[in-house]
C-alpha cells in the first residue's frame, strides 16, 4: 500500500528542498580511501562445507532489535514503546503508523495531512529500493520523493532530511518551526561523516585504532 500511495506533489517538493540544502545528495562521489580495503586480510573465500557449528542448529532466536528506516522509531515512537517496537516487524503498520502520525501532529504540532503523508512513506518500516531506477538517484526516500532508486547511502544526511520533513515549512507552513536547513530544529549542522568513505568494498572507512 505504501508503494502505491499518491503523495507525489508533497514529496516532490521535499525532494527539491532536500537537494537545495544539500542533505539529500545523490551525486557526490565517495572519496576513495584505498587503504580501507587494501589493508584488509584476504580471508578464505570458500563456503563452509561442514557448517562448522551445527550444535546450535536447533536454537530459537527471538528478535531483540529491529531497524528499517532511520529515525522512524527514534524520532516518532514514544520511548516507552521502543522495546515493543524493537521486537516488531515492518508490517506492524496498524500499531505504529498512528503513533508516528500522533508525534507529527501532537509533539511537532504539524497538520494531519503532513502526518499522513510522512506515515505513508515510512510504513511498512523498511528501506525501499527501486532497482528499475538509475543508481545515480539513490538516496534515502528518493524512491518516494523523487522517483529514484531509494535505499540509504552512507553519505545521506538522514538527520537533516528527517528534521526538515517533520519541523520545517517545506511541506506546510502551518506549525513550522523553521525553514529547511535552518535553526532551531531543521538541521543539526553536521552534514557529513568525520572520515571519507571508500569507493570500493566494504565502503565503510577503516576503524579508528
Amino acid at each position, binding site marked *: 500500500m505504501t*508503494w502505491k500511495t499518491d503523495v507525489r506533489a508533497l514529496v516532490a517538493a521535499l525532494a527539491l528542498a532536500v537537494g537545495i540544502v544539500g542533505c539529500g545528495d545523490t551525486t557526490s562521489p565517495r572519496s576513495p580511501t584505498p587503504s580501507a580495503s587494501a589493508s*584488509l*586480510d584476504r*580471508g*578464505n*573465500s570458500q*563456503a*563452509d*562445507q561442514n*557448517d*562448522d*557449528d551445527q550444535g*546450535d*542448529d536447533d*536454537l*530459537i*532466536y527471538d*528478535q*531483540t*532489535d529491529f*531497524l*528499517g528506516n532511520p529515525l522512524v522509531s*527514534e*524520532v516518532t*515512537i*514514544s*520511548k516507552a514503546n*521502543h*522495546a515493543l517496537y*524493537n521486537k516488531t*516487524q*515492518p*508490517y506492524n503498520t496498524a500499531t505504529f503508523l498512528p503513533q508516528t502520525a500522533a508525534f507529527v501532529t*501532537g509533539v*511537532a504540532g504539524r497538520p494531519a495531512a503532513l502526518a499522513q503523508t510522512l506515515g505513508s512513506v515510512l510504513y511498512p518500516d*523498511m528501506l*525501499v*529500493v527501486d532497482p528499475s531506477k538509475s*543508481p545515480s538517484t*539513490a538516496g534515502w526516500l528518493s524512491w518516494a520523493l523523487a522517483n529514484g532508486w*531509494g*535505499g*540509504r*547511502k552512507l553519505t545521506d544526511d538522514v538527520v537533516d532530511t528527517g528534521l526538515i520533513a517533520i519541523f520545517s515549512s517545506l511541506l506546510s507552513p502551518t*506549525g513550522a*518551526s523553521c525553514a529547511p536547513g535552518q*535553526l532551531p530544529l531543521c538541521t*543539526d*549542522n*553536521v552534514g557529513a*561523516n*568525520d572520515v571519507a568513505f571508500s569507493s*570500493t*568494498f*566494504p*565502503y*565503510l*572507512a577503516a*576503524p*579508528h585504532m
Partner: protein
Amino acid sequence: MPAVVAGGLVVGLATSNRLRASDHQDTPEVELSPRYDVNDVYAFPASMPGRTVLVLGTSSPITPAKTASFTFGTKDQELYQLKVDNNGDGKEDLVFQFTFTGTAGHQRVTMHGPMKPSEIGTANTLLHGKSTIAGPTNAVLGSADGIQLFAGPRDDPFFIDLEAFFRVLPDRKPSTGPLSQITQGPLSFRPAGQAVDFVRGFNDMAIVVELPTSMLVSDPAHPSKFGVWGTTSRARGN
C-alpha cells in the same frame, strides 16, 4: 506564529518522551547488551553496475577508538539478520543470516542466504544446508556466485550532533555514560562551527554484503521494488 510553535514544542516535549535521531542505545535492554543494538541499516548501489550493497551496523555502545576487544555475539547466543521483502507486503521473502564463532580477534563468520526463511516474524531458526560464505572476520570474503562479505570493526558511518539532540530532549538520553549527564538546553541545535559530530572517531561492528541486485528481486527480468531491514535476535534460553 513562531511563539505558538515554540510553546507547542515545549508542552509536547515536557509531556512525552519522544524524539531521538539515532538508533544507538535506544532501550535499556540494548544499552545493557550492546551487541544486540542495531545502529544503522544501509542499502545502496555498489561501485559496479547491477550490484547492491547492504550494511548492518551493530554492536555499540558507539564503540570508542582503541576499544580492546571488538567482538560479535556468538551463535550460541545471537543471530544477526538482514531481511528483504520483494513483493510489497512488508514480510520477509529472503533473509541473510550471519552467525559467529570464536573469541575476539579470532572470530569466524558464517553467512546463509539470501534464502527463503523457515519462519516469517520475530522468532527465527537457522537456515540449514551449506553456507553461502564462511571465513574469518575482518577480511573480504567471496562466493563463487559473486557475493562479497565483510564482517568486522569499521568507522561508525553515522553522523549527528547527538549532544545537541539530548540538550533539546534530555529525557531521551541514555542512563549511563557521558551523555547521561546532559541537562535541558535551548530548543535548538547548534550553529555551524559549533555543532559537533558526536560519533566522530567511533567504531561499530559492521556486516557488509555486496551481491548482484538480481538476487534480491522476485523477478530479475522485471526488477521491482524491494525493502530491507536488519535485526538482532537472542537465542532463547541462552
